[in-house]
């Protein structure tokens, strides 16, 4: 029934289908509301299916190389070229596949939620067009094996996110937040272009595998590394460059925020990909690893301390998002710091990386869930100020349960998924440096304290008279949240299976630079 070529070309189609849907969306969406909803849902479902299929095939059959415009999809190096890849190549290894799983799950649930939650707004055809473009750009960012192609998708995600953040123009502040984000993102893009120019000028290649093969680690390469870490850490919202995050996350519509979390994780993926695959051992792994660790520790600590006094529920969650990004940087940074030392790498380095990567998928799930519940509360109550909420647990039981699941997961309480990944990070980081592990635990306790307070002030207490008429949110919104909540619980109950199935291959793929190069250049 489904044409075979759709599956044969799944990595490319996972980008092409949302793009195609986005190009048609302004025309369809302008005239029929029902048609628009059906179209967007269909496109999101198709994209998720293609991304999941790609991921499944990569996990079972190994790295999938897809060459655009060659005579055969797998012909990465033309025979007459003397061993250099010349076309744009998608290289989906296990790490990329993991990110595709995240995009597929979160993207679909968010669209499901958004179709119901944002149904009464204006300019929806453009809104959903940007939504689809953002999904397409994230899929592109995580699957591409080409530096310049990564930059192009980076720019698409920057423009689409900025438009979505500024969506509520009448608020004024939203446009400001969008502008702030956009200036930062554009600067990041320009730095990336500098990096591309420097690397291209030296090695005359744009393919990541080819660049990694030719990497000499000259002074210019060091400059490029600094610039690229700066650009991508900014986009991921790590602490010294986090100033755009609270505004953007708080003022965007809630469904957009849940997707923005994934978009910033795609930048984080880029950061890991470039440090591990592009530079690998040629960089001074300990130094760069410590840079990532310090970024992570500052993010964790500053994020959580800034979060505690917030009154605005989404702003609070945004600071927690910064704090959780710190855990990923801490875990993966620890792994990077011991990259050159095989003994330490086997002792705890691999586990630290796996913990950091596991935290990426867990964070996407529970943070998405939390932002969606915040959106559900705001949808019914009409305010973001927690001091004016209270007693909502009486009327919004499902939302309360979902919020509780998300809050316990982010605080790292068993049996939810946050616990599993945080435990891996604590254990491995403790072997590396006990102080770091203790800081991580303290941050986790502070997170719990913060969320207990939030939970209490939103849901507990007597029912307030002004919220007499408040009802539970519509079923599609609950379904969107339910998918994420179910996965949060499942990942928490069976962490070992998930780690074996998804996380360990991804961590190994990240560490295996020669394998990445070999699948393009063919055993070189």
């Amino acid at each position: 029934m489904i044409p075979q070529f759709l599956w044969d070309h799944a990595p490319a189609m996972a980008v092409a289908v949302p793009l195609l849907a986005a190009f048609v969306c302004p025309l369809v969406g302008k005239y029929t509301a029902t048609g628009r909803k059906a179209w967007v849902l269909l496109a999101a479902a198709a994209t998720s299916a293609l991304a999941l299929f790609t991921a499944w095939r990569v996990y079972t059959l190994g790295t999938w190389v897809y060459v655009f415009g060659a005579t055969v999809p797998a012909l990465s190096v033309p025979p007459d070229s003397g061993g250099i890849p010349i076309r744009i190549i998608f290289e989906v290894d296990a790490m990329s596949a993991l990110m595709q799983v995240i995009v597929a799950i979160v993207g679909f649930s968010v669209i499901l939620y958004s179709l119901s939650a944002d149904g009464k707004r204006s300019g929806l055809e453009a809104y959903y067009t940007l939504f689809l473009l953002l999904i397409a750009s994230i899929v592109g960012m995580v699957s591409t094996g080409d530096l310049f192609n990564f930059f192009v998708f980076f720019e698409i995600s920057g423009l689409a996110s900025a438009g979505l953040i500024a969506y509520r123009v009448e608020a004024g502040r939203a446009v400001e937040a969008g502008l702030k984000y956009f200036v930062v993102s554009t600067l990041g893009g320009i730095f990336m272009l500098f990096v591309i120019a420097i690397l291209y000028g030296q090695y005359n290649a744009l393919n990541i595998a080819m660049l990694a093969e030719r990497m000499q680690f000259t002074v210019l390469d060091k400059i490029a590394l600094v610039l690229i870490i700066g650009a991508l850490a900014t986009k991921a919202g790590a602490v010294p460059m986090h100033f755009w995050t609270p505004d953007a996350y708080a003022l965007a519509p809630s469904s957009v925020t849940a997707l923005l979390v994934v978009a910033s994780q795609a930048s984080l993926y880029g950061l890991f990909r470039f440090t591990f695959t592009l530079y690998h051992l040629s960089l001074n792994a300990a130094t760069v690893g410590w840079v990532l660790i310090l970024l992570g520790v500052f993010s964790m600590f500053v994020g959580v301390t800034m979060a505690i006094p917030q009154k605005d529920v989404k702003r609070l969650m945004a600071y927690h998002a910064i704090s959780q990004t710190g855990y990923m940087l801490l875990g993966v940074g620890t792994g990077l710091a011991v990259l050159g030392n095989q003994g330490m790498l086997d002792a705890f380095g691999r586990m630290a990386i796996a913990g950091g990567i596991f935290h990426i998928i867990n964070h996407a799930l529970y943070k998405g869930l939390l932002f969606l519940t915040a959106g559900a509360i705001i949808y019914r109550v009409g305010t973001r100020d927690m001091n004016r909420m209270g007693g909502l647990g009486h009327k919004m039981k499902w939302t309360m349960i979902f919020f509780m699941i998300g809050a316990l997961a982010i605080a790292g309480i068993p049996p939810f998924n946050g616990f599993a990944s945080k435990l891996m990070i604590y254990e491995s980081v403790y072997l590396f440096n006990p102080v770091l592990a203790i800081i991580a635990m303290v941050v986790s306790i502070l997170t719990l304290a913060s969320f207990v307070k939030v939970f209490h002030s939103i849901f507990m207490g007597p029912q307030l008279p002004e919220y007499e008429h408040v009802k539970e949110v519509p079923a599609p919104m609950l379904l969107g949240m339910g998918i994420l909540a179910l996965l949060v619980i499942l990942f928490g109950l069976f962490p070992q299976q998930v780690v074996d199935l998804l996380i360990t291959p991804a961590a190994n793929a990240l560490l295996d630079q020669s394998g990445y190069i070999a699948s393009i250049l063919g055993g070189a």
Partner: protein
Amino acid sequence: MFANLPYLAVATLTVIGLSTVLLKRNLVKVTMGLNILTSAVNLLIIVLGYREGGIAPIYTLAPQTYMVLPTPQALCLTSIVIGVATTALLLSFTMVIYRKYGTVNVDEIRELRE
């Protein structure tokens, strides 16, 4: 020193652009700074691909076949269009902010500062 004059031009443009973005408080000037930065990077990419004595990589009525590198020109084309799109969106944000607050000076737009 003078042989590398194009690179010095890139450096000058970059510093001008970056200082405009970081030091100016006017949103239109910030946009202009970003444009200057984009031009600087584009110039860098083009300059990296120049070969002494090469011609434009087009075979139509070409006097010789020794050509400059074509890839930088293609990258630059892409980057220019991205720059145009970025500028359009930035300026429209600025216009909306101006309508809302009556100013484009970031110091006077204080709503997001705590």
